[in-house]
Structure formats: C-alpha cells, structure tokens
C-alpha cells in the first residue's frame, strides 16, 4: 500500500463483514419460516425478514464498493485522498442510515417497494451521504497525477449508480408506473452501472495480480462495459413484459436481454485469459481465486441463469416464482458479493502488512461458501421448477403447490449451513488480520 489514506477502506470492509453476517441470519429466519418453523412470526414476520435480508445485501455491497473506491482511487490517481476526516464522516453516516433503516423495518417504517423499502425521509440522507462520497472520490481523482481508465470506469459506475437512485424516489399512484420506474433503479443498477463498478474492480485486481499490461486490460474493459450498456439498457424490457405496459417491450426486451449474457461471458473470458497471459505470479493466490471465481460465477448466475428465464415465452410462466429467487441468489453472489470479497482479500494483507493468504482457513472459506451457494441455488431451482409446473401449468392452488416445495427448502437450508461455515471462516481470517498498520506503508505495493 502506498498511501496512508487508503486505510479508510478497512472500516468500510469491516462494516461489510458485519452486515453480511446479519444478512445471512435473516436469510435463515425466512428459510425456517418456509419449512414451517415460524416461531418468530410475531416479532419478525416474513416481510420484515425479507426487507432486512435484501437491504442489508445492498448496503453491504455498497459499503464494499465504497471501500474499494477508497482503496483503488488514491493508488490509481497517485495521491492521498483529499480528506480522511470527511471520509470518516461519510462512513459513520452510512452506518447510521443503515441502522435506522434496518431497525425501522421492524416497526412498519418502510415503503413496501421491493428493494427500495427505505422510507422517503431516509432517502434524502442517502443522497447526501452518496454526494459526500462522490465528492471525495472525484476530487481525489481529478486532482491526482493521472486519470486511468480503470479509475474512470469505477468512478463513472458509482456516479451513475447515484443518479439512477433518483427515479426510484418519484411517487406514483399507479402500481404499474411505480413498478416501471422501480426497474430504472433495480435493473439499471445490477445489469448496468454496477457492472461498471465490478469491471473497474476486476480490471484493477487483474492488473495487480497478473501483471498484464494495463493498456491491454483497459481496452478490453471498454469492450465489456460497452456490451453491458448496449444490451442492458434496452434489456430493461424483460421486466416490462407482464406488468401492464405495451407489447413492444416483449420484442425489445426479449432481444436485448438475450444479449446481456455476452457482457458476463466477456468478463469471464477476460479474467481467465489475462490470468493465463500474466507472467507475474502474485503470492496472494487467494485473492486471485476470488477474482477469477467472481468472473466465472457471475457468468453462470447472471448470464446463464438469467438467460434461462428472460425470453417472454418462458418468463410468462416463471415470472415472480422461486425461479427468480434462484437466479437472484447466484447472480448477486457471483457478480457482486464475490468481487467485494476479492478486493477485501487482496487489500487487507496490504493494509495490515500481514500475509496470511496461504492459510488453509482462507482457502476453505472460498470452497465451502461456493459449494454451499451452488447447492442452495440448485435447491431453489428445483423448488422453482416444481412451483412453475404445479401452480402455473397444472393450475394447482398456490398454497397447495408450496407444500411440495418444503423438502427443497430443507435441502437449501442444509447447503446454506455449509455456505455459512465458509463465510464464518472468511470472517475469522478477516479478524485475525487485525487493523491497518502504518508499517505496511511502502513505496511499491
């Protein structure tokens, strides 16, 4: 690590780990409710658990992206962050908004719009928080010695993510309009600007870990994010098939969303190819595992499993079923959770000056969590297919068909346990690293 101010990233990563643990806890509450163990119903009904589960996911990922930016931007721009004090202010206000929102969900203080449950008053706080963050990152970048493509793509991703939050704050009386613009946030985030963030982090990690020439990596980065927007913007139409808008979206959404996997395929090929090409063998193999793993799993989870239900003819039957939940888990895991875990695995040894990356626990964490998640996804997928067949094809009553999915949730919970063991090992390693140390500052990281 070269710049002292990069250490701020550590606190964002620590928040990540903490919120991730809570997210999993609420996942189990829902999983148990689904097999009939709903003892917590009076205190934490399913809708509370779900809002907490998905919002914590989004907040810990954002905290990870912010940490990544605080780590990457000074290094790329070759200067210290403009203000570490303000960065701490931003950190605490992020944590505060998160806590108020999560606590509020337990007291019916929410908006009830999937993924955008944060109540309106808190939305304004989010906006202020993100503006402060962007201000710090962008001034550091533009005052710096150089503006690399990697840094630009990452910063643009963060900037557009902030802008796209705004359409989600417009109030509509119509459920259809509400849903239409909700997707401008949710879809254009995960299948648009977040891919820029992912691409930026991926490119940074590949440059550091493989030693391949920056020009080559950044050229392909442009191609990948180009494919992302070319397919992803009009691909939004795959959410407009059956919500009460014009049929034109069946054609446009169908064609363009079917092209979306190309960007993820590009990401996977890019990572594997650069790894093969690289001559430098960085000792931090674990970070390399998470990096390449993220590129590959995102292709499966987002690309292949997304494609599986994106054509209008299929989506007619799978729309709003457990098939969607299957895809949601694997896509979020591969593309965003794993890339955040990758940058943490890469940067924490540099910030603390300890080199624990060849410890068995870290490698076990990688394999157990990945095998566990794959199992969860298969179980959800089977449950989804059963649901679609019984409820949508055979026209069975919803609740009767649900009864048949219980067994698959037992399997899912077993796999989730394996997954959790892996994540606990990851957390253990994170804690064992200890805090950032000034002794780790060195001219070449």
């Amino acid at each position: 690590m070269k710049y002292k101010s990069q250490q701020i990233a550590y606190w964002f990563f620590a928040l990540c780990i903490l919120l991730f643990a809570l997210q999993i806890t609420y996942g189990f509450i829902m999983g148990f409710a689904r097999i009939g163990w709903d003892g917590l119903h009076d205190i934490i009904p399913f809708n509370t658990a779900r809002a907490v589960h998905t919002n914590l996911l989004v907040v810990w990922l954002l905290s990870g992206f912010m940490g990544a930016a605080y780590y990457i931007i000074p290094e790329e721009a070759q200067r210290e962050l403009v203000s570490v004090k303000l960065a701490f202010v931003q950190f605490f206000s992020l944590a505060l908004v998160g806590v108020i929102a999560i606590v509020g969900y337990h007291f019916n203080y929410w908006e009830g719009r999937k993924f955008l449950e944060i109540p309106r008053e808190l939305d304004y706080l989010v906006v202020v928080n993100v503006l402060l963050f962007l201000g710090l990152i962008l001034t550091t970048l533009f005052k710096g010695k150089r503006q690399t493509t990697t840094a630009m793509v990452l910063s643009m991703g963060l900037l557009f993510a902030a802008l796209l939050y705004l359409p989600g704050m417009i109030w509509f009386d119509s459920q259809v309009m509400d849903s239409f613009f909700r997707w401008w946030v949710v879809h254009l985030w995960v299948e648009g600007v977040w891919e820029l963030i992912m691409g930026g982090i991926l490119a940074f990690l590949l440059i550091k870990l493989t030693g391949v020439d920056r020009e080559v990596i950044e050229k392909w980065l442009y191609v990948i994010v180009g494919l992302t927007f070319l397919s992803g913007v009009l691909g939004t139409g795959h959410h407009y098939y059956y919500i009460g808008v014009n049929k034109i979206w069946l054609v446009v959404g169908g064609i363009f969303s079917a092209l979306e996997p190309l960007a993820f395929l590009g990401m996977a090929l890019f990572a594997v190819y650069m790894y093969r090409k690289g001559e430098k063998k960085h000792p931090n193999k674990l970070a390399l595992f998470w990096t390449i793993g993220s590129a590959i799993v995102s292709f499966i989870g987002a690309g292949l499993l997304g494609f599986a239900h994106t054509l209008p003819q299929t989506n007619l039957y799978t729309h709003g079923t457990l098939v969607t939940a299957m895809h949601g888990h694997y896509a979020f895991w591969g593309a965003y959770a794993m890339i955040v875990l990758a940058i943490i695995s890469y940067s924490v040894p540099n910030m603390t000056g300890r080199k624990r990356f060849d410890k068995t626990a870290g490698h076990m964490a990688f394999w157990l969590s990945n095998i566990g998640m794959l199992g969860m996804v298969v179980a959800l997928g089977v449950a989804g297919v059963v649901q679609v067949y019984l409820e949508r094809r055979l026209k069975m009553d919803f609740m009767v068909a649900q009864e048949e999915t219980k067994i698959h949730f037992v399997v899912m919970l077993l796999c989730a346990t394996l997954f959790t063991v892996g994540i606990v090992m990851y957390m253990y390693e994170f804690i064992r690293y200890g805090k950032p140390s000034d002794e780790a500052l060195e001219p070449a990281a």
Partner: protein
Amino acid sequence: MLSKSQARAFFLGGTVVTFLIFIGLTIYSFAPKNDQTNRDKLTAEVAKGKRIWESNNCMGCHTILGEGAYYAPELTKVVERRGEPFIRAVLQSPVPWAPNGRKMVAYAMNDEDTEAVIAYLKWIGEIDLNGFDRVVSPLSKGEKQ
C-alpha cells in the same frame, strides 16, 4: 486489431444510442393510444389502497403483477379468484390468517381501509397484462381462452 480509442468509442456510442432509444420507447408506451396501464379507472380510493398496500409492505410476502416475494399467493387476480367477502375476512382477521398453515400478519383492518385495498386489487385485476393474467388465475384461464 481493435485499438483502445476504438473500444472507448464503441462504449460511448453504444450507450448513448441505446439510452436514447430507451427514452423514446418509454414515451411511446405511455402515449395515450398505446397506454394500457388502466389509468382511467384509477380513482382516489384505488390510490389510497395502494398506499395501504405499500405502508404495510404486503409485497414482502405476496407478488402482485408478478413482483414481490414468493411466500404467499400471487394477488393479481385475487378478487376474481376468491371474491370480495373472502378478502374482507382475510384483511379483517384479528388473528394471523393461515388456513393452509402459513401465517399472514393479522391486520384487523377497519372497513374503510379494507374497501380501499379491495378497490386497489380490483383495479389491478383489470389491467391488460399481455397474457400473464391468464396464467396466474386458474379461474380466468378456463373462461377467457
């Protein structure tokens, strides 16, 4: 071989063009003659129903128009499927509604709110959903196809 500046041009060009088309299509689909969002029938009561729906996060258990959670029945065609008295009983129940064993939150709703939610669900049920309406409702399937 592709150069870095060509790659950048591909990125910027593709983004601008698709984004403009996207805005164009959005305007197109809400133009009066293409609009199918059931806008004319959206009364103040329906809007009130939506607010109740939202402030209680019903979408955290149910799906509506195929969006939401997968824990409880899809409600797009619920009025047609169950009828109003049944829904009234669900919403006004003082204990968690769970005839099939899975619990709903007990809302014990007053009459005014109940009628607003029913108006909202009725409005939802009348939207033209490009065929999805037939898939989620066993009742309408037999009749309308």
